[in-house]
């Protein structure tokens, strides 16, 4: 899907809107003013032409030879050229006049006794021609007004209006920029707050303050929503933790009683013995499940206290691997420490790191024929711990989901005897994350699974 930027759209809307509106107003203004000016000018010119035509007529009556001088004096006074036409030929014209300005049609129309006036373009200039007939002497007087000054005024007006439109558009664009920033800022705030919350910073809230009313509503609803969600999450986590905790007492009675029964195993019938074995086996799974569930619930509730110690990674991994193997009753796994990692330290909760190793080695023993080697090495700013097993490896599509709670992969389905709690790897990932590290699974060079832990290097002494 093509995603457009809201800010860009706001900006474009404002810019284009301002441009369109200002252009429209500029054009309207221009054309009205133009019309007004031209009309005015024409009225004036028309009146003048009639007056001049009257002068021409009286001159023709009284002293025709003075006509030329009159026409020139009119031209000098009004800056228009005057032409007099009679009996199909030009009688006289003022100095600046050009007979070509007045076409034959115009002459003909005026000759028919009509007063005619029209604006036409001649050699790129606008001129206003007025023709007045003097029927008594079969003469037509034409006056040609040049509209240069009007044109000039209109040009300046157009320029000013155009500039105005441009400035308005720029201001509109600026306004758009400001508005879009202002409109988008709360959205950006919400989005970064939501991202922070998604990253687990549950105390993140939006600032209710100088925001606009609508934004304030958004802010408040957002904050309310987050608070409710957090409360809900805490309640759920506490519930799981409480349930697991409450299960401990009856579970203790159960395991103890089963051990008493096992003391008296010989007195039981074969059926009783078999039942007892089943009970004992499932009880131990149940116990692990409650342990894991409690640990995970606490981790969710954020009440899991990690006692982080800075410890040499070599000693940590060796001891954890050994004790995990002993606790699980599986063969010890060789631990290889690279020279680079020999002197390095990491910050972990010892007990929980041991749990991590126990879960990884236990998993390998259950599903993959056991771990082959645990390797400790150094990388740039962290220490890596690889646990390789001899199994068939983890299918690519399960390499992420294997860390999900109660995920049952193909390996688990294949072996009905090997029953885990389904929480082991989820717990491993939680713990490793609490140490500031990461864990992923991929394929070892031998083809088995390789659980790859990265822990940040830490400096400092041990106490």
């Amino acid at each position, binding site marked *: 899907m093509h995603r457009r930027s809201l800010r860009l759209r706001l900006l474009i809307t404002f810019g284009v809107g301002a441009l369109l509106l200002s252009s429209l107003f500029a054009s309207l203004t221009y054309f009205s003013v133009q019309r007004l000016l031209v009309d005015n000018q024409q009225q004036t010119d028309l009146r003048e032409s009639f007056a001049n035509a009257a002068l021409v007529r009286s001159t023709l009556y009284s002293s025709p030879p003075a006509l030329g001088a009159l026409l020139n004096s009119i031209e000098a006074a009004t800056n228009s050229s005057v032409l007099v036409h009679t009996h199909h030929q030009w009688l006289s014209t003022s100095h600046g006049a050009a007979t070509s300005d007045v076409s034959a049609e115009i002459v003909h129309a005026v000759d028919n006794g009509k007063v005619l006036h029209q604006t036409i373009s001649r050699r790129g200039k606008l001129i206003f021609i007025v023709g007045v007939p003097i029927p008594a002497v079969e003469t037509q007087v034409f006056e040609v007004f040049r509209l240069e000054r009007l044109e000039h005024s209109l040009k300046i007006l157009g320029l000013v209006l155009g500039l105005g439109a441009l400035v308005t558009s720029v201001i509109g664009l600026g306004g758009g920029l400001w508005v879009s920033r202002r409109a988008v800022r709360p959205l950006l705030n919400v989005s970064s707050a939501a991202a922070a919350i998604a990253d687990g910073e549950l105390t993140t809230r939006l600032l209710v303050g100088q925001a606009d009313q609508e934004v304030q509503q958004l802010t408040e609803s957002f904050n309310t929503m987050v608070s409710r969600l957090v409360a809900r999450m805490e309640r759920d986590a506490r519930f799981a933790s409480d349930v697991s905790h409450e299960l*401990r007492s009856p579970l203790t*009675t159960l395991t103890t009683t089963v051990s008493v029964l096992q003391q008296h195993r010989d007195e039981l019938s074969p059926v009783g013995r078999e039942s007892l074995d089943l009970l004992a086996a499932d009880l131990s799974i149940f116990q692990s499940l409650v342990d894991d569930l409690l640990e995970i619930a606490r981790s969710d509730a954020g009440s899991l206290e990690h006692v982080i110690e800075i410890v040499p990674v070599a000693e940590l991994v060796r001891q954890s691997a050994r004790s995990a193997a002993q606790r699980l009753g599986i063969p010890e796994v060789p631990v290889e420490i690279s020279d680079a990692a020999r002197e390095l330290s990491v910050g972990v909760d010892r007990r929980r790191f041991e749990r991590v190793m126990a879960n990884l080695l236990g998993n390998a023993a259950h599903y993959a024929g056991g771990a082959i080697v645990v390797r400790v090495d150094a990388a740039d700013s962290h220490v890596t711990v690889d646990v390789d097993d001899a199994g068939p490896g983890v299918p690519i599509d399960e390499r992420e989901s294997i860390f999900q709670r109660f995920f049952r992969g193909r390996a688990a389905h294949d072996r009905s005897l090997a029953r885990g709690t389904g929480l082991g790897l989820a717990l491993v990932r939680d713990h490793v994350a609490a140490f500031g590290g990461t864990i992923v699974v991929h394929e070892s060079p031998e083809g088995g699974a390789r659980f790859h832990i990265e822990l940040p290097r830490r400096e400092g002494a041990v106490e």
Partner: protein
Amino acid sequence: MSRILIVEDDDHIRSALRLMFEGEGFDVDDAPSGEVGVALFNRMRSDVAIVDLMLPGISGFDTCQALRSTSDVPIVIVSARDETADVVLGLESGADDYVTKPFVPAELLARVRAHLRRRPTSAGAFTLGRLQVIPDEGVVRDQDGTELHLTSTEFRLLTDLASVSGRVLSREDLLERVWGYDYFGDSRLVDVHIRRLRMKIEPDPANPTFLVTVRGAGYKLVL
């Protein structure tokens, strides 16, 4: 025949524990509260005690302190609480060991037995600054002859570190030697006991000169 005291307020757990320990050949005294437990202990002088932390009336911590004030009896705390603060506080109030519910019954049995059959230490008498440690008599004396009181676990910790003549013992070594664990237990047990021991024998417990931490390795006793 060993005598065990069980202080536990949950009737079912108490009965189950009684059955289990009786089945293993113990003489069992059980008490639903700390008050009853302490009174029972004073009368019966049990060889080992199991104490729950969350009790009605006086708490498990107080019960441990009360027992410890009159005796060196090994005390194992059995609690549903496994937060480090509880473990440390439990051990600080005089307990020797800490087991989290729900426990593996065989593990609890093994721990109780380990506390009961502490082997005599092989260390000879030695001095620590102003202190005279005499393992044969099980006492630590000051220069002026005043006896310093150490619990049996603390004494064992001290003499075991002395017996390896200055070598470093890791936490798991100590768990095996002192607590009799045959696998890696909770290293907090060692750390808390070392701290308690330092409070008693070091002139300045914050800067230990005898009982020193060796980075990444464990502890050693500088004689």
